[in-house]
C-alpha cells in the first residue's frame, strides 16, 4: 500500500531542494529537471494515494512519531490521509508540476534559475507537508514554512524595492494571522489536551468543552486562515505579492498557499460546527472579503492584480461556503457548504492557475502588466488567449465548465440565507464582468501600444503545454462533481455525513444568467464600447476612486498600524536609552555625585576633624616643641631630671628620705625656670635655629 509511504510525498520535493542547494546549483538544466522529476514522482504517488483512498472508501489512514515526549507534554509529527488530503495532494502536485514545467520557459535566462527551482521545491514540500499533517502542531509548522517559502519566492527578484517590500509585507501580514492561530493552538493544547485532529474533534463531539471555548478557539484558528488566505482584513499582502515571478503567483496565489487557509477551515470543520457563532463569523468574513475584493477587481489595470483580487474574492467565496456549512450544521441543518467550498477549492486551483500562467505568458510577451497597454493579442498568441478565455469562462461560472459546478454549489449553500445569496450572486456578476473586462482589454480590440504589440509573440511550448493541460482540467475537473453523479466528489469529500447534491435547476439558471450578464456588460463596455468605461468612472467618481485605491486599506494600515508601531519602537528605543539605561547610568551618576558629597564631607567634616585634631596637636606642639630641641644631651638631661624626681618620690615612699618631695618640687621648678631662662637667651642668640625649626 503506497499510502504508508505517503510521507514521502512532501519529502520528495525536499530532497529536490537539498540536492539543488548542495549539489546541482551550478547545473541549471539539471536542477530544473531534477526538481520537476521529484514533483512528478510526488504527483504519481498522490494519484496512487487517491486511488487507494477511493478504494478504502475514504477511510482515513494515520501514522505518526513523537516529536517531543515529555511528561504531560507530547508533540507529534505524523500523516493523515483522508479524502480531503488526497484531493489536496492531487491539486497541489498537479498545479505544482505544471508551474515547474512552465517555469523552465518563463525563468530561462534568469541568473538565479537554479535557486528558483530550489525554492519551488521547498515550497511544494511545505505545502504538501501542510496537507498531510495529522495534527494542529504539525500543520502550524508547515504553515509557517509555507510562509517562509512564499517570502523567498515573492522576494525572488529582491533587487526590486517593490518586491523586497512585498515579500516582507506578505510574511508579516500572514504572521499577524498566525498570531491568532498560535493562540488558538494554545487553547486547543490547554483545553483539549492534544493537537491531534481526531482527538480534538472527538472532544468537540463529546461536548465536554464549553461552547465559549470552542467559539474562541475556532475563531483564533480561523485567524490563521484569514492571514494565509488573504481574507479581509489581512488581504492586503496578496495583491502586492504579485511582485514575485508569475509562476510563483500561479502556484502560491492560485492553488496552494492561499488555499491553505481554506484547507485549514475545511480540515477543522468539526471545530467550527461546534460553534454557530464562530461559523457565522467565518461566513461573514468570507462574504465581506469576496465582495470587497471583487469590487476592487472591477477597476484595476494591472493584469496580475486583477487576478490577485479575483483570487481573494474566490477564496472569500469558499470561506463563506464553509462558514455557512458550519453555521447550518451547528443548528442541525443540512447544507452543501462544505462540499461547495472544497469543490470550489479544487476547481479554482486549475482555472486560477491557468489564468496566472496565461497572464504570465502575456507578460512574458509584452513585458508589461498594464492591460491598458495591451489589446488584440489574440492574433499574436492564440494558445494563450484561448486557454485564458476558457479559464475566464470557467471562473465566470459558465456551463458546463468546472467553475460552473462548484459556483453553483456555493450559490446553493447560500440559498437559505438571503443576504448571502444576494451577495453571492452580486459577486458572481462582478467576477464575470472583471474577468471578461480583462479578456477584452488584453486579447481583443486594437492594440493600444503598437510597440509592445509588435514584439509580442507566442510563448515557447514548455509554457503553453501546461496552459493547455490546465485548460482541459478547467473544463473537465468539475465533472467529478456533477449533481447527477451518484458517487461524485460530494460523496468522497465530506464532513459528517456524505452529502448528495441534487440539481437545483432554478439556481443553476440564475447563476448562469448572472454570469452571462456580467460577460455581456464587459462586452458592451470594452469590446463594443457602447457604454463608455470612462464615463462610468467619471459618473461614479468617488466610488471609482475608492475602488481604484483598494478602499485605502494600505493607507489605513500604514497610518493606524505600521507608523504607530514604528513610532512606538522608536519611542521604546529612546525610552530604553534614556530612561532604563538612564536609570542605570543615573545610578552610576548618583554614585559619583554621592561620592562627591562624601568627598566634600570627608574633606571638611571627617578630614576636618582629623585635621582639626592635627591642628590642635600642632598648636600644642608649637608650645611643646621647645622641649624638642633636637639635642640628645638635652633629652638625656630631661631623662635624668625625671629619674631623680621619680627616685626621690620612691625613696620617700620607703621612708628613706622623708620630707624630700618638697625639695624635689623646688628642684624641678628651679630646673625648669633656669632652663627656660637659658633656653630663651640661647634662642634669642641664634635666630637661624628658630627659622629652621619653623618647618
Amino acid at each position: 500500500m503506497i499510502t504508508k509511504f505517503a510521507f514521502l510525498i512532501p519529502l520528495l520535493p525536499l530532497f529536490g531542494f537539498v540536492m539543488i542547494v548542495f549539489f546541482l546549483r551550478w547545473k541549471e538544466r539539471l536542477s530544473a529537471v531534477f526538481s520537476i522529476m521529484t514533483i512528478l514522482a510526488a504527483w504519481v504517488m498522490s494519484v496512487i494515494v487517491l486511488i487507494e483512498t477511493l478504494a478504502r472508501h475514504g477511510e482515513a489512514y494515520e501514522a505518526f512519531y513523537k516529536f517531543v515526549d515529555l511528561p504531560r507534554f507530547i508533540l507529534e509529527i505524523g500523516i493523515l490521509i483522508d479524502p480531503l488530503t488526497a484531493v489536496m495532494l492531487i491539486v497541489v502536485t498537479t498545479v505544482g508540476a505544471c508551474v515547474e514545467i512552465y517555469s523552465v520557459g518563463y525563468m530561462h535566462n534568469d541568473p538565479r534559475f537554479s535557486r528558483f527551482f530550489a525554492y519551488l521545491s521547498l515550497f511544494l514540500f511545505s505545502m504538501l507537508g501542510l496537507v498531510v499533517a495529522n495534527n494542529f502542531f504539525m500543520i502550524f509548522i508547515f504553515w509557517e514554512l509555507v510562509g517562509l517559502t512564499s517570502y523567498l519566492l515573492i522576494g525572488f527578484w529582491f533587487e526590486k524595492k517593490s518586491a523586497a517590500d512585498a515579500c516582507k509585507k506578505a510574511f508579516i501580514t500572514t504572521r499577524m494571522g498566525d498570531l491568532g492561530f498560535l493562540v488558538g493552538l494554545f487553547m486547543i493544547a490547554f483545553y483539549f489536551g492534544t493537537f491531534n485532529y481526531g482527538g480534538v474533534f472527538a472532544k468537540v463531539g463529546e461536548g465536554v468543552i464549553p461552547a465559549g471555548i470552542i467559539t474562541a478557539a475556532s475563531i483564533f484558528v480561523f485567524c490563521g486562515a484569514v492571514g494565509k488566505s488573504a481574507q479581509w482584513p489581512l488581504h492586503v499582502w496578496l495583491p502586492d505579492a504579485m511582485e514575485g515571478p508569475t509562476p510563483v503567483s500561479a502556484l502560491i496565489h492560485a492553488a496552494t498557499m492561499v488555499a491553505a487557509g481554506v484547507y485549514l477551515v475545511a480540515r477543522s470543520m468539526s471545530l467550527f460546527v461546534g460553534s454557530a457563532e464562530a461559523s457565522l463569523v467565518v461566513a461573514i468574513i468570507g462574504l465581506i472579503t469576496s465582495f470587497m475584493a471583487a469590487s476592487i477587481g472591477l477597476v484595476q489595470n494591472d493584469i496580475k492584480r486583477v487576478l490577485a483580487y479575483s483570487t481573494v474574492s474566490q477564496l472569500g467565496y469558499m470561506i463563506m461556503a464553509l462558514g455557512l456549512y458550519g453555521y447550518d450544521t451547528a443548528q442541525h441543518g443540512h447544507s452543501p457548504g462544505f462540499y461547495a467550498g472544497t469543490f470550489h477549492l479544487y476547481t479554482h486551483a486549475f482555472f486560477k492557475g491557468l489564468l496566472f500562467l496565461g497572464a504570465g505568458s502575456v507578460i512574458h510577451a509584452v513585458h508589461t502588466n498594464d492591460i491598458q497597454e495591451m489589446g488584440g493579442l489574440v492574433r499574436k498568441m492564440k494558445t494563450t488567449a484561448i486557454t485564458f478565455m476558457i479559464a475566464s469562462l470557467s471562473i465566470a461560472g459558465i456551463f458546463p465548465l468546472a467553475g460552473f459546478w462548484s459556483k453553483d454549489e456555493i450559490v446553493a449553500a447560500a440559498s437559505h440565507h438571503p443576504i448571502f445569496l444576494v451577495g453571492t450572486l452580486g459577486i458572481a456578476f462582478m467576477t464575470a464582468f472583471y474577468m471578461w473586462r480583462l479578456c477584452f482589454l488584453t486579447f481583443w480590440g486594437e492594440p493600444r501600444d503598437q510597440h509592445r504589440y509588435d514584439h509580442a509573440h507566442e510563448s515557447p511550448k514548455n509554457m503553453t503545454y501546461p496552459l493547455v493541460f490546465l485548460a482541459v482540467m478547467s473544463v473537465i475537473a468539475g465533472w467529478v462533481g456533477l449533481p447527477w453523479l451518484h458517487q461524485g466528489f460530494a460523496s468522497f469529500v465530506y464532513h459528517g455525513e456524505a452529502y448528495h447534491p441534487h440539481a437545483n435547476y432554478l439556481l443553476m439558471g440564475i447563476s448562469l444568467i448572472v454570469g452571462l450578464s456580467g460577460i455581456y456588460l464587459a462586452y458592451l463596455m470594452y469590446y463594443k464600447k457602447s457604454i463608455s468605461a470612462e464615463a462610468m468612472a467619471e459618473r461614479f467618481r468617488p466610488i471609482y476612486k475608492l475602488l481604484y485605491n483598494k478602499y485605502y486599506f494600505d493607507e489605513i494600515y500604514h497610518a493606524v498600524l505600521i507608523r504607530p508601531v514604528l513610532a512606538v519602537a522608536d519611542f521604546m528605543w529612546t525610552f530604553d536609552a534614556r530612561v532604563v539605561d538612564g536609570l542605570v547610568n543615573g545610578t552610576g551618576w548618583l554614585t559619583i555625585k554621592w561620592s562627591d558629597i562624601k568627598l566634600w564631607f570627608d574633606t571638611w567634616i571627617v578630614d576636618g576633624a582629623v585635621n582639626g585634631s592635627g591642628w590642635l596637636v600642632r598648636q600644642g606642639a608649637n608650645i611643646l616643641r621647645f622641649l624638642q630641641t633636637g639635642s640628645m644631651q638635652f633629652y638625656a638631661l630631661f631623662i635624668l631630671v625625671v629619674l631623680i624626681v621619680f627616685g626621690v618620690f620612691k625613696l620617700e615612699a620607703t621612708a628613706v628620705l622623708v620630707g624630700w618631695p618638697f625639695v624635689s618640687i623646688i628642684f624641678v621648678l628651679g630646673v625648669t625656670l633656669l632652663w627656660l631662662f637659658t633656653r630663651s637667651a640661647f634662642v634669642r642668640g641664634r635666630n637661624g635655629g628658630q627659622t629652621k625649626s619653623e618647618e
Partner: protein
Amino acid sequence: MLAYLVLALVLFSIGLFGVLTRRNTIGILMSLELMFNAVNINFVVFNKFVATSALVGQMFAIFIVVVAAAEAVAGLAIVLLLYRNWQGIDTDNDSVMKW
C-alpha cells in the same frame, strides 16, 4: 668604704655633667669614660668590702673596661664619620635630630 663610694659618686656626677653639657662629641666620649671609671670603682669597692670570695666585682670591672674600650673604638669611628660628613663634630646641629 663610704669615702670610696662618695668619690665614685662625685666622679660619676662630673662625668654626667660632661655628657650633658660638652659640645664636642669627643668630649662626651671622654666624659663617658669618667662615668665608666666611677662605676668600676664601685664594683671594686663592693668586691673588696662586701663580697670578697668570688672576685665577681673585679671580673665585672674587667669586662666593663673591655666593653668601654670597644665603645670608645666604635664611638670614635662614628665621630670620624660624622666629621667627614658634617665637617664638624659639635652636637649643636640640633635641627638634625628633629622634624
